């Protein structure tokens, strides 16, 4: 029910929203899926990565670097996904030898190293200027330069990404990831080669992170260093925490709230980072299981209220 409503809503949004707002909401969608990919790693595999921006950036820079080849947009998106997956496979195979905080530090180091590379190879990455002038071109006679058609183009890819994540979650592989999250050492005593599963999860998260980055570069029309910066690794973690780290849809809900609040605050005050931090603090303190726990909390509250009403002495009807 929820899913059908969501799909219908996403399909009609371009017809009801003014074009000026499409950009904003498409950004929200892309980050929602990015946050879900990070939550697969952090919330469902127990691998705390502080460097997923690396994959978002790999996706974005793949689009930028392929620009001179004038390939069709779907091809560049597929290549970006492959780039994310291949790099994750190689890097993961090395850094997953470490665990816990050491692993987290290595993800951060890798992300920052990649960020520095954009300065080193200024000639092709454009350094601080980035790679401007990204064109979306036409596919099968459809002009993707139009925000409405690009909305549907993005929606198609994001739906593929979310569908794949949903399948992973509902599959034996996802079940096994949750077992590993709960106790990786103990999982080994079930005959599970933990390292391979963690690597698999890392590759999936990397591929979908790159997908998000590629779609974002095409949306923004420019690739910039921000898309590799460490704050972009932290944001999806905060989104996931706000929404519910160990739930499927929670991180997406967190992304919506996070970006909306950020946008509203940035309009009103220069100190928006401060208020964003405070919002985050409120969530951690008062809603530790995130937005996704709201329906259950509401049910509990109603059940309790009902119980209290029944326990109260009955009054005569007025």
């Amino acid at each position, binding site marked *: 029910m929820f899913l059908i409503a969501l799909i219908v809503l996403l399909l009609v949004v371009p017809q009801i929203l003014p074009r000026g707002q499409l950009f904003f909401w498409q950004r929200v969608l892309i980050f929602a899926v990015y946050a879900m990919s990070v939550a697969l790693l952090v919330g469902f595999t127990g691998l705390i990565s502080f460097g997923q921006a690396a994959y978002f950036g790999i996706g974005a820079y793949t689009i930028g670097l392929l620009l001179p080849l004038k390939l069709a947009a779907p091809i560049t998106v597929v290549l970006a996904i492959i780039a994310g997956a291949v790099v994750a496979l190689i890097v993961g195979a090395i850094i997953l030898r470490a665990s816990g905080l050491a692993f987290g530090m290595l993800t951060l180091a890798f992300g920052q190293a990649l960020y520095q590379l954009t300065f080193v190879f200024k000639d092709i990455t454009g350094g601080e200027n980035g790679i401007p002038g990204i064109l979306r071109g036409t596919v099968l006679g459809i002009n993707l330069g139009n925000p409405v058609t690009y909305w549907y183009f993005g929606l198609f890819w994001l739906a593929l990404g979310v569908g794949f994540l949903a399948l992973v979650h509902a599959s034996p592989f996802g079940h*096994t990831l949750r077992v590993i999250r709960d106790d990786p050492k103990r999982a*080994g005593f079930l005959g599970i080669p933990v390292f391979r599963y963690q690597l698999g999860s890392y590759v999936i998260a990397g591929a979908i992170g790159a997908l998000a980055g590629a779609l974002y570069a095409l949306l923004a029309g420019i690739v910039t260093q921000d898309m590799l910066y460490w704050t972009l690794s932290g944001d999806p973690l905060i989104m996931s925490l706000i929404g519910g780290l160990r739930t499927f849809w929670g991180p997406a809900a967190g992304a919506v709230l996070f970006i909306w609040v950020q946008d509203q605050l940035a309009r009103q005050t220069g100190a928006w980072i401060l208020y964003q931090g405070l919002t985050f603090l409120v969530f951690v303190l008062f809603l530790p299981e995130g937005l996704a726990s709201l329906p259950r909390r509401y049910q509990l509250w109603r059940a309790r209220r009902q119980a209290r009403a029944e326990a109260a002495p009955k009054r005569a009807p007025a």
Partner: protein
Amino acid sequence: MSLPLLRLAGISKRYPGVQALTDVSLDVPAGQLRAVIGPNGAGKSTLFGVISGEYPPEAGVVELDGKNITGWPPWKCVRLGMARAFQVAKVFPRMTVYDNVLAAVMARDGTSWQFWRLTSRVPGRKRVDGLLAETGLLSLAETPAAVLSQGDRKRLEIAIALALEPRLLLLDEPTAGMSPEETHATVELIRQLWRERGLTVMLTEHDMGVVFALAEEITVLHRGRILCTGSPEEIRGRQDVREVYLGDIEL
């Protein structure tokens, strides 16, 4: 005399500052129910850790069914036919009892890595209900493992171990933390499993009632060395065993 299923030769294992095992050699014939006893800190859990791949020994050889498995990681030992229940039960706390056992069943069936099918349609689910029934956990199937009592957690560990369909089952103090009724039920369960499935079982226990009710042969460990191995009658009669361990325990 058939080939031993498990063979340890000259095993030594030290932790920083503690020599936990010294030159331990023992054979466990296939199908035997063997108890390992000894005072606290004797090295029983460490021995299980060495057998199951948790701790690689500094010296010595571990063989399972004639195969040298020294230094293998736990997951490989499990795939060769070993399963272990821990002294302090270790289960997957955020998952339900059912999902704990299902994870083990899928690992055993080799379906764990499949990401293209739904867990709800995995053929192994039928076996999970059977295992929960056998271990008396059916009514707790949907309970998160984190809130189980110590006794139920121990039983869940046995269910997980059985799901792996091992040839060698290692039980580290299977009745620790159980009430007398639970202990009795667990002893019967172990006996029944051992008989019906032709398992080789190795267990440690401080409850001598359990040990003498179940064991065919007993190995006594003292300060990381094997003091002796023998039938329950022999062990009961030995003066040195009384001195190091059984001294103040009613037999």
